[in-house]
Each structure stands twice: as structure tokens, then as C-alpha cells.
């Protein structure tokens, strides 16, 4: 019977997603043990249970846990946004970094820092910085959406437009730095590196809340995204309100990207790599691809962060630099593959 075979097939996918969740937990625990002060897994476990010495508990709870929580939340947010951009724009090359949304949000955040006259992101400012980052991220998203509606837009043309938009925002960011004082410039430059250690618990809570909200929205619409995957006319004829769902999805993707960028800086390519990696394991069915993308994003960022802290320890590399190193070859591979298909 086809139904039984299909049920087995669905269970196989569920198990893959559960395995990804288990890998994320293992990576998080492993990440807790890595750093300048070497801690064993039993040390970490006792610290988590509140039974370790104060020094160990401080390291685990105040230094490493926020970093790991940030990696999980930001990795999931960036990957989700990339996955949904690829779906709604029907473009495998789409992601917040390739379309310039991250750069737009970066510009917005830098602008807010300069206009607020502060070189640091203290507790009172993140909301305004996030808001301005979101507005600029959204402006970029709207521009991309308009470009994608042009009949002649091929996936590569849209990404090329993203490159142009990125350059525009990078230029604008450079220009505002020209008028900023030294402290602000160093803050912006340091901030563009992308650093998970920067986010505080409050900020992580904001990113996580938005990411969870987006995740619930995306999961609730998983069948609609599956229909969109079959083409927008097919989706419309299956009763999907494509005209409303696509902009809403892009807006939510821009929101979670902007909040991540505002608090941790630019972490490129996770949004491109993670959804493609997740597709390898669970395919294109959004019932599984949405949670799998979020988990793959978290795992990738956790692993990259472990590498950043261990490659030339005790120096901690900015995670954004390493993700760009990882992402660039994959991006080239996808462009070549896209060319092969046309």
C-alpha cells in the first residue's frame, strides 16, 4: 500500500529532524567546554545544575551560555530567513546577505548609532537601533520584491541587484563613518565583523522571541509554502493568498535578520548555506525543511563559533569572517549550478 510506504517515508524525515535537534544539543554542550579556561563535560554539567564552584559557574553562565544562546538564536533566525526568501522568491541564491538585506540593516544600525551619538550599544538603545536596522532591511526587501516581479528577472539577475544594493549600502555606511568621530567609527567597524560575544541576555531574548514568532508563523504556513514551491499560479489555484503571504513572509524574514544584525553584526552566508544543507537531509518539503533549516543554522553557527574560539586560541576570531570563508565557495557553486540548469 502506498499509504504505509508514505507513512514510513514521513517518519524517516521526522527522525532526521530529531537527530538534527540532538546534534544541536551536543554541539551546544561541546561549545560550553571550549574556551580559554578548559572545562570538562562533568564540570559543565555540574555548573548547569548549580553544583560547581563559583568560578566555573560564572564562566558557564555569564561568558559561554550567552554566546551559545546567541549562536542558536541567530543561526536559526538567519537560516530561517534565508530558507523563506529562497521559497517566496523561488530563487536558490536568495538570502539576507546575498540580497543586501543584511547590509541594509547594517547601514540602518550604523546610522542609528551615529545619530544617537553613541559608539556602543548600551541597554537603552538596542530597540531604536533594531527599529532603524529593520526599516532599512525592509526597504531593501521591498526593492528586491519589486525587482523580482519584473518579468525578465532571472535568479542571477536578482542576486546581481542584491550585489548592487549591498554596494550602495556599504558606500553609504562608509560615508556616514566619514562624519563620525573615532570612537563611533571603531564601534561600527568592530560591529561589522559579526560577533556572538556581543549580545546580552536581553538582546538574545529579543532575537529569540522574534525568531520563535517567525518560526511559528512559517510552520503554520508550511502547506502554503509547499504550494508556492510548485509555482505561484498553482499556489493561487490551490487557494493560497500569494499576494499577502509573500510580502508578509519577506517582512518577517527581514525582521529576524535585522534584529540579528542589530545585536551581533553581520554574519554572512549562514542564511544561504544552512537551508541548502538542510535540503540535502530532508528535501524540499517545508513541513520538515523549516525546522531542519532552523536547526542546521544553529548547529553551523555553533560549530563555526567553536572553530573561532579554538583555531588560534586564546584569540577569538569574529564569527562573521569565518562564515564568509565558508559561504563564498558554496555561493560560487550554486551560481555555477544555476547556470548549468538554464
Amino acid at each position, binding site marked *: *500500500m*502506498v*499509504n504505509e*510506504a*508514505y507513512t514510513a*517515508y514521513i517518519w524517516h524525515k521526522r527522525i532526521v529532524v530529531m537527530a538534527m535537534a540532538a546534534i544541536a544539543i551536543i554541539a551546544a554542550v561541546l561549545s560550553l567546554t571550549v574556551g580559554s579556561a578548559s572545562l570538562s563535560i562533568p564540570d559543565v554539567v555540574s555548573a548547569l545544575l548549580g553544583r560547581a564552584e563559583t568560578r566555573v559557574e560564572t564562566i558557564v553562565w555569564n561568558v559561554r551560555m550567552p554566546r551559545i544562546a546567541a549562536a542558536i538564536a541567530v543561526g536559526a533566525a538567519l537560516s530561517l530567513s534565508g530558507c523563506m526568501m529562497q521559497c517566496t522568491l523561488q530563487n536558490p541564491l536568495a538570502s539576507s546577505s546575498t540580497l543586501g538585506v543584511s547590509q541594509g540593516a547594517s547601514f540602518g544600525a550604523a546610522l542609528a548609532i551615529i545619530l544617537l551619538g553613541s559608539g556602543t550599544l548600551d541597554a537603552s538603545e538596542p530597540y531604536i537601533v533594531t527599529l532603524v536596522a529593520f526599516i532599512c532591511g525592509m526597504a531593501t526587501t521591498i526593492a528586491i520584491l519589486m525587482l523580482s516581479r519584473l518579468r525578465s528577472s532571472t535568479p542571477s539577475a536578482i542576486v546581481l541587484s542584491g550585489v548592487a544594493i549591498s554596494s550602495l549600502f556599504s558606500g553609504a555606511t562608509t560615508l556616514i563613518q566619514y562624519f563620525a568621530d573615532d570612537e563611533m567609527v571603531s564601534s561600527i567597524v568592530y560591529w561589522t565583523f559579526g560577533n556572538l560575544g556581543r549580545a546580552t541576555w536581553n538582546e538574545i531574548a529579543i532575537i529569540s522571541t522574534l525568531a520563535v514568532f517567525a518560526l511559528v508563523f512559517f510552520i*503554520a504556513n508550511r*502547506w*502554503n509554502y*509547499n*504550494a508556492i*514551491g*510548485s*509555482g505561484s*499560479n*498553482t499556489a*493561487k*489555484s*490551490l*487557494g*493560497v*493568498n500569494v499576494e499577502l503571504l509573500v510580502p508578509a513572509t519577506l517582512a518577517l524574514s527581514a525582521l529576524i535578520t535585522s534584529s540579528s544584525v542589530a545585536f551581533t553584526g553581520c554574519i554572512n552566508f549562514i542564511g544561504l548555506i544552512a537551508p541548502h544543507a538542510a535540503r540535502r537531509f530532508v*528535501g*524540499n*518539503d517545508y513541513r520538515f525543511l523549516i525546522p531542519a533549516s532552523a536547526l542546521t543554522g544553529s548547529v553551523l553557527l555553533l560549530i563555526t563559533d567553536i572553530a573561532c574560539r579554538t583555531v588560534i586560541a586564546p584569540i577569538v576570531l569574529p564569527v562573521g569572517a569565518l562564515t564568509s570563508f565558508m559561504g563564498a565557495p558554496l555561493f560560487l557553486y550554486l551560481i555555477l549550478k544555476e547556470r548549468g540548469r538554464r
Partner: protein
Amino acid sequence: MIELKDISFSYGDENTLKDISLKAENGDVVAILGNNGEGKSTLISCINGIRKPKSGEVLIDGKAADKMRRRELAKLIAYVPQKSDDCDITVFDSILLGRKPYIRWNITEDDTAICQAVINRLGLEKLALRSISELSGGEAQKAMLARALVQEPKVMLLDEPTSSLDPRSQHEVMSLVRGIAKEKGIAVLVVLHDINLALRFADKLFLMKDGRGRIFTVNGIDAETIKAVYGIDVDIAKIGERRFVMIKD
């Protein structure tokens, strides 16, 4: 039953469809014919709500389609596109999507049972867990037909379902379409390019020229009408009960 009343549509200033009226009873197969650019696909997209007509109305069993929510309309009208999806999901998942208008939070056992029944009816059992992108043209067209059927529609719209198929698959697909229309009492509007395929499988022909259309019975069509629509001289031959159109040298 579907009824189109004075449907007009324009791209910019140019009127693509001019006062199109057409009626198909339950179980009727109506072939929509005409040269490229005569508005056949536009007419299909105006019926299923992808495009909004400038004027006129579409009635399904007497109810106005434009007054319905898209989800409700999708329970009544199913659409089979010209080309198969460029999408890497299994045939079963693709067919399951036809239940989309009925799915609230998740699929039910009823949904999978309906898919199973349609898969059996169309002989797709062996392909059910294959990727849709691995199928041949004819198989993919059948899978899309299956998706339309699990929508349990009253009306089915097919946009050139045979255009990229070999003669055997064309025959197979159209034979299925006709069989299902009669069996389930579905009104079918199908855009075709092959007049002989239309004469073989349709009950009525709707010929479009310059944005206007006229309905004919299979036996009511003659060489002059075909010349007026396609601009070609033809002979109509009769072999047994069936009629064939042959282009003159």
C-alpha cells in the same frame, strides 16, 4: 456546471478577451481552441481567479466565483498547468497538495485516503515516492491531473496539458480526462492545440479568434469555420463515426 457571462479582460489598452460567454454542464469536456495569442490561457486564468476580469462574471453552479474566498473557490475549481512543477518533492506530496484548500492545521487520514484512491485510479502507485522531477512528461501530467482530482472539484481547467507529450501520452492523458469528467461529473475546460485530439475527446469546441469565442458541437464544425479561426485551408474527413481535420497542401 460552469457558466461564463460576458468576460472581458485587457492587458493595458489592448482587449485580450471580449465578452466571452460559455457554458459547460457537469461531465462536459469543452476544448478551447485557437491560434497562439488569442487569449486561451488568459481566459483560463480569469476563470480560476489568477487574473481579475475587467467585466463579466464566472458562475459555478449558479454562484458567482468573484464573491468567493480563494480557498472556497479552490474547492470548486482545479487547475492543471501546462508544465510540470520544477520542484523536487515526491509525487505523493505533490498530489497531497491538492488537499490544500481543505487542510486546516495538518492533513487527516481522509486526505491521505483520497490521495491513495486517486493514485490507484490513475495507476501511479509505483511512482508515488519518486521525485516529481524524475518523471517523464506523460507521468508528470498524470501526477498534476491527480492533484487536481484530489481537490474534488466541480470544474477542472487544463492549460495545454498535451503540448509537450508524445502521441501515446497525449492519448492517454486525454482519455483519462474524458473518463474522469464522465465518471465524476466534472465540467472540464481544456486548452488544446491539436484539433483532432479535441474532436476525439471533447463534447464541444470553443473556438477563439481576436478575443472572441464561439461554441460548436464536434459535428457542427466545418472547414470554413476552421479557416476563419486558424487562417488555414482544411479538409474534414469522416472515418466511421469520427471526424478528422487535414490541412490542405
